[in-house]
C-alpha cells in the first residue's frame, strides 16, 4: 500500500513549445494510500501515459514520481512493487491456475508452504478455489483477467494495483460481476487502486475519486457526486452522464439570462457575470412544467425514445436542443408536440469560456 505523488509533464519531443507537443501537460497529483481512483477520458487524452508513468513502464520527460515520499521516477515496475492488469488477459499458458498465482512468490524464493497458503487465500477471494488445478489457457476471458489480478494481489506488500481498461474484452453481462469483484477486493484489502477507462460507468462505480482528462490535461478531480452535480468544465459536463449535460448559449444580464428570444429570470440568490455564457443542465434535472412557469422554455419535441427504465425526450428551441429524462409515463408524446421544459433549476450551472462561473 503506498501513497503516490506526481509532479511531472510528458512531452513527445525534446523541445515542447505548445500544448499539442505534450502527451501530459504539467500536473501535480496525489493518490492517497488505500484509495480507489479512476482516470477517465476519451482515447488519446493521456490516461494510459499517466498510468504507465506511475507503474514505471514509461519515464516522464520532466518531473518526478514519489511512492511514500521516496523518488521512484526511474525505478522499474519490479522495484516499485506494483501490480498491473492489462487490457487483455496476460497469463502463462503452460501453467495451471495455481502455478500462475504462485509465480511472483516463487520468483522471490518464498517457502513453499507460505506460497500455497497465500495462493489459497487469493483464490478464495477471487472465487476460483475450485479451478486451481486447471490449465490457465483453457479458461474464459473474465477468469483469465481474474488470474491476472490475482497475480498482483498475491504479493502481500504490493504497493498499488493499476488497471488499464481491464474489461475491454469481457462480455457485457460478465462485466457487472467482474466490476463488483474488483470493488469488493478494494473494500476488503484496502489497496491503492488506479483504474484507467473511457467508460464513465466503470470509472464512477469503482472509484472514490475520478480524474477526468482530455488532451493531456486533468480537467477535474472529484467524487462521482461532485462531477455529476457541479462539473467544473463543460467537457466534464459533457463527458459524465449518459447522455451528457445540455448546453444552451445565451447572454447574462444583471438578474436574467437571455436565450433569444426568451428572457429567463434568475432566482435572487444567484448572480451571473455579464456577457455570453453557457447554461448547463443535466437531462435528469430537466422537468416538464406548466406553460409559462418561470425558468422554463417553450420547446418542440423532436424525438421520443423509450429506453426501458425511462423515456428520453429530445426537444428544440430556437435552433438549440435539449434532452430530458422523463419517467416511463411520458411515452405518449410524439414529434411536433409543444412542451415546456424547466431548465433553470438549482442544479443548473453556468459556464464562461468552458469554465464554471456560477
Amino acid at each position, binding site marked *: 500500500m503506498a501513497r503516490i505523488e506526481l509532479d511531472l509533464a510528458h512531452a513527445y519531443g525534446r523541445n515542447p513549445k505548445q500544448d499539442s507537443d505534450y502527451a501530459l501537460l504539467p500536473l501535480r497529483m496525489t493518490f492517497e494510500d488505500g484509495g480507489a481512483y479512476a482516470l477517465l477520458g*476519451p*482515447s*488519446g487524452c493521456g490516461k494510459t501515459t499517466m498510468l504507465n508513468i506511475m507503474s514505471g513502464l514509461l519515464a516522464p520527460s520532466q518531473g518526478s514520481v514519489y511512492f511514500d515520499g521516496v523518488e521512484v521516477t526511474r525505478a522499474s515496475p519490479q522495484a516499485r512493487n506494483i501490480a498491473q492488469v492489462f487490457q487483455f488477459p496476460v497469463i502463462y499458458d503452460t501453467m495451471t491456475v495455481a502455478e500462475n498465482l504462485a509465480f511472483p512468490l516463487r520468483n522471490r524464493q518464498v517457502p513453499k508452504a507460505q506460497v500455497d497458503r497465500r495462493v489459497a487465500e487469493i483464490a478464495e477471494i477471487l472465487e476460483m478455489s475450485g479451478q486451481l488445478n486447471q490449465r490457465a489457457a483453457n479458461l474464459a476471458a473474465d477468469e483469465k483477467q481474474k488470474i491476472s489480478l490475482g497475480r498482483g494481489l498475491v504479493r502481500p506488500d504490493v504497493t498499488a494495483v493499476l488497471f488499464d481498461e481491464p474489461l475491454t474484452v469481457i*462480455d*457485457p*453481462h460478465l462485466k*457487472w460481476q467482474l*466490476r*463488483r469483484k474488483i*470493488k*469488493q477486493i478494494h*473494500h476488503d484489502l484496502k489497496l491503492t487502486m488506479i483504474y484507467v477507462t*473511457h*467508460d*464513465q*460507468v466503470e470509472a*464512477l*462505480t*469503482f472509484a472514490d475519486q475520478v480524474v477526468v482528462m482530455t488532451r493531456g490535461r486533468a480537467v477535474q478531480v472529484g467524487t*462521482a*457526486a461532485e*462531477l*455529476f*452535480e457541479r462539473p467544473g468544465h463543460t467537457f466534464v459536463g*459533457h*463527458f*459524465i*452522464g*449518459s*447522455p*451528457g449535460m445540455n448546453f444552451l448559449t445565451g447572454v447574462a444580464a444583471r438578474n436574467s439570462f437571455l436565450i433569444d428570444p426568451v428572457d429567463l429570470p434568475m432566482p435572487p440568490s444567484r448572480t451571473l457575470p455579464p456577457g455570453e455564457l453557457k447554461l448547463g443542465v*443535466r437531462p*435528469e434535472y430537466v422537468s416538464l412544467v406548466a406553460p409559462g412557469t418561470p425558468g422554463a422554455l417553450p420547446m418542440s419535441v423532436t*424525438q421520443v*425514445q*423509450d*429506453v*426501458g*427504465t*425511462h423515456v*428520453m425526450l429530445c426537444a428544440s428551441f430556437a435552433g438549440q436542443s435539449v434532452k430530458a*429524462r422523463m419517467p*416511463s*409515463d411520458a*411515452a*405518449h408524446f410524439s414529434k411536433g408536440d409543444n412542451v415546456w421544459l424547466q431548465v433553470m433549476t438549482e442544479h443548473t450551472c453556468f459556464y464562461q469560456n468552458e469554465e464554471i462561473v456560477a
Partner: protein
Amino acid sequence: MQLTLEGVSKKAGAQSWLYEMSIAPRSNAVTVLLGATQAGKTSLMRIMAGLDVPTHGTVKVDGQNVVGVPVRERNVAMVYQQFINYPSMRVWDNIASPLKLRGEHGIDQRVRELAKKLHIDMFLERYPAELSGGQQQRVALARALAKGAPLMLLDEPLVNLDYKLREELRDELSALFADGNSTVIYATTEPGEALLLGGYTAVMDAGELLQYGPTAEVFHKPESLRVARAFSDPPMNLLAAHATAGGVQLDGGPALALQLPGSTTQKLTLGLRASALRVNRGEGDVDLIGKVELAEISGSDTFVHVATQVGEVVAQLTGVHYFDLGAQVSLYFDPTQIYVFDAADMLLLAPVRGGGR
C-alpha cells in the same frame, strides 16, 4: 425490398451455429439483432448478405429465392467492427468507390454531401490510416450509405469506439436511418443500444432466435426468461416463488396478490427490473428487507446490491445515494411491476405499461 428468411439453419460439421429460424425484418426500418457474443448474430447477418449459404431454409428478396446468388450480385452494404476502409485510397475515393462502380454522374457532389452528413468533409484528402477510430468508422459508414443499397448490415460497428463517441455516433445513426430508405440490420450485445436505436429487435441466444418485434414491446413483454435475461441492463432480478390460491408466494418472502392466467405450474420465477425497486415506500408497495452489500454510483444512477430474505437483488435508483456497507435497508416495489415466468421459463404475466406509479 422485403427480405424474408424461412426455416433457415446453419451447421458446420457437427456444430449447429444457427437453429431453425424464420424472420422477415420490417422493410425500411431498423432491426436490431441483440445477443451475447457467439449468439449467432454474425452468422445470421452473413446469411442475409449472401456471404454464407444456409444448410437448410430459403432466403427470399421480394419473393425471389436468392440462396446461392453470390453477394456481388445482391445489393447489400456492410459495415464491420474493425473500421474497414481501402487503405491505399483517400477518403474521397473510398466514399466514391461504390458510385464509380455503378458509373454514376455527379459523384463529387454526392460524396461531399455524405461527408458533410457524417462530419468528415474536412478529411476528404486524407488516407484512412491518418484518421482516428471514430473518423475511420464514419468513412466506412459514408461508403455504405453511398452505395444506397436497399439492405444495410452493421455488425457491432461501434464496439471498438470510446463510450462517449459511441453515444454521439449512435444518435447520428438514428437520424441517418430515419430518413433513409433501406432496411437496416444492426447487431449489438448491448441492450441499451437496442433501446436507443428503437425500431424492431430480434433477441438471439446460443444460435436461436427467441423473439422478434417492436423494440419496446420485446423489452416490456419478454416471451421467456431467456429473452428477459438477454434484454436487460442491469440484469433483471430473478426470484424463486410458487403459485398460491391468491396469487404468488415468494420463496422465503412476502406473498403477492396477483391474478395469474388459468392453470399454471406450481414452481414460478418472478422477474423484477432493477429500476422497479425504490427506497421510498409507495401505496400498496411490498417491501423487502436486507443488508447492503455494495453500492455503485454512476452519476445519474446508483446501483445498490442488497442481500434480502428472498435472495440477492440489485436496485437502480435515480441520482446519487450513499449507503454504508452492511447497513440495513428496505426496498419497495409495486407488485404490478412484476414479471411472472412459469416452470418452463415462459412468460405468464407482465406489468401493464402506462400503469403503476
